[in-house]
């Protein structure tokens, strides 16, 4: 197809329109319970137009909910990075460490967040009111950690021998080698890991909120499903999608900023 002016804007809009049309047709034909786009808008209007309103614990503007979710994700994600990056470095640097811990990592990696969350809640039973938050944090951290761990390890292994030779010839100290050679060299890989981790952290938050009933996008979604307000499910799905997209974009901007090679 030929390119034309504003095709970067017009074509995606056409794509959205196509999906909305399918949605409209579906809601009026085979899926009677699915709210139509118009009905969804009418029911969600107040949540979108007053995004920071707070009418009750589980009845707040959509951006306010998003903010709660983001706060929790940020904490869990940082925890994942703080734990995951050093593990990745150890895996990349030490063959013994890799041999010892790689199998357990490969076993833990595919475990779903839905499986971790109950364990998280059990772990922090003693924390009382904080239990649900700590459990959610635990789940986010342990699920989002793996891409960071594995990509950092690959990045460290991919450091060219030349750079290591430079460090050896200059007799750089361990810390200097780490900060002047190892980290800058592995940084592009690390950022790929960070980005994937953030995506997973955002996936996990919804599941975590659903199960714990915390206020947030995921918690709101589950509550509205239970109260049979299906329009709000769609509102939540759209919000989660857009926020995830925005986070990924932000990370790719950061990635370019920190590009070292």
């Amino acid at each position, binding site marked *: 197809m030929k390119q034309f002016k504003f095709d970067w804007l017009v074509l995606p809009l056409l794509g959205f329109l196509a999906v909305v049309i399918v949605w409209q047709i579906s809601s009026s034909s085979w899926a009677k319970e699915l709210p139509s786009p118009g009905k969804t808008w009418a029911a969600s209007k107040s949540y979108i137009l007053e995004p920071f309103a707070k009418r009750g614990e589980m009845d707040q503007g959509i951006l306010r909910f998003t903010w709660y979710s983001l706060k929790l994700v940020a904490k869990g994600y940082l925890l994942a990075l703080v734990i995951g990056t050093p593990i990745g470095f150890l895996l990349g640097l030490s063959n013994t460490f890799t041999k010892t811990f790689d199998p357990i990592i490969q076993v833990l990696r595919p475990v779903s967040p839905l499986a971790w969350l109950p364990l998280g809640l059990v772990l922090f039973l003693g924390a009382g009111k904080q239990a649900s938050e700590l459990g959610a944090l635990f789940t986010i951290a342990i699920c989002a950690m793996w891409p960071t761990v594995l990509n950092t390890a690959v990045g460290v292994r991919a450091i060219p021998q*030349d*750079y290591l*030779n*430079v460090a*050896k*010839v*200059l*007799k*750089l*100290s361990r810390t*200097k080698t780490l900060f*002047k*050679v190892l980290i*800058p*060299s592995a*940084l592009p890989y690390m950022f790929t890991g960070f980005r994937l981790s953030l995506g997973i952290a955002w996936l996990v938050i919804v599941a975590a909120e659903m199960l714990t009933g915390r206020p947030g996008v995921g918690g709101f979604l589950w509550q509205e499903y239970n109260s049979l307000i299906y329009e709000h499910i769609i509102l939540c799905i759209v919000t989660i999608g857009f926020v995830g997209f925005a986070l990924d974009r932000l990370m790719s901007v950061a990635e370019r900023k920190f590009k*070292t*090679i």
Partner: protein
Amino acid sequence: MAFLEIKNVQKGYGTSGSFTPVLRDINLEIEKGEFVALVGYSGAGKTTLISLIAGLIKPDAGTLTLNSSPISGPGPDRGIVFQNYSLLPWLTVYENIFLAVDEVFTDWPAVQKREHVEKYIAMVNLTPAREKYPAELSGGMRQRVSLARALAMEPQVLLLDEPLSALDALTRAVLQDEISRIWQEHQKTVVLITNDVDEGILLADSIIPFSAGPESTLGPRIDVDLPRPRERKAVNHDFQFKRIRREVIDYLLKANAKVHSTVTRKLVLPEIEPEDLSVPRRFSQNRTGPIRANEIKKLEVKG
């Protein structure tokens, strides 16, 4: 005792099962302030030897001593310029050199370190590019940075591992002149590894050819007694220059010929039967490939 002394050094790679010898019986003595060029084919173990001197690898047998103390590991007393520059791409020209200076002269005040770095950047004519990253520089400029980094450490020995072989001929000539100039100013002990005989003759006090690998060793030392500064143009017509070049090249060719004449393995040709092209097509039913001669049945029809 010589300044840099290599005695009966032997080195090979691999485990006992698949061991490949690279160097044997390496004996080398280099005096302080001497410029020695080691010339040899690729694969002769030149880089292995310089890595041994640098301390990046350890010899299987023999000893290396610098200034009467054995070489046990890498250290800033031996500045090395790698063939592939080995600059850190996330640091600017200044930072790359500063990293070295900062590490070697730890007790200097900041101002002195900065001036020291500036001095060496100026020495290789890179002052305008001091805030540039290696990716923004040409190959020649990168190699200058690498050279400045090695020199700024004020090493006792400068090891140049084919520093110019990745550069185009014109840039190489410019850098050769620059190395020559810097050497005359500093009178550092230099070990230059190269595959370019002319480069060796132009720069060095003496040339030592490698015999061809595997298991190569050093040949006889050939002194270059041409007066300095050596003019690239004049050198081309100089009788002495030609004589030295012939001597080095003769040795290298002879060493190589010896290796090739010792190849005893018989060459086995693949067994291919010629196709009989005159066989008519109709014999080749149900097959896509041609028929071999021995597949054809001959029938005699009695009439």
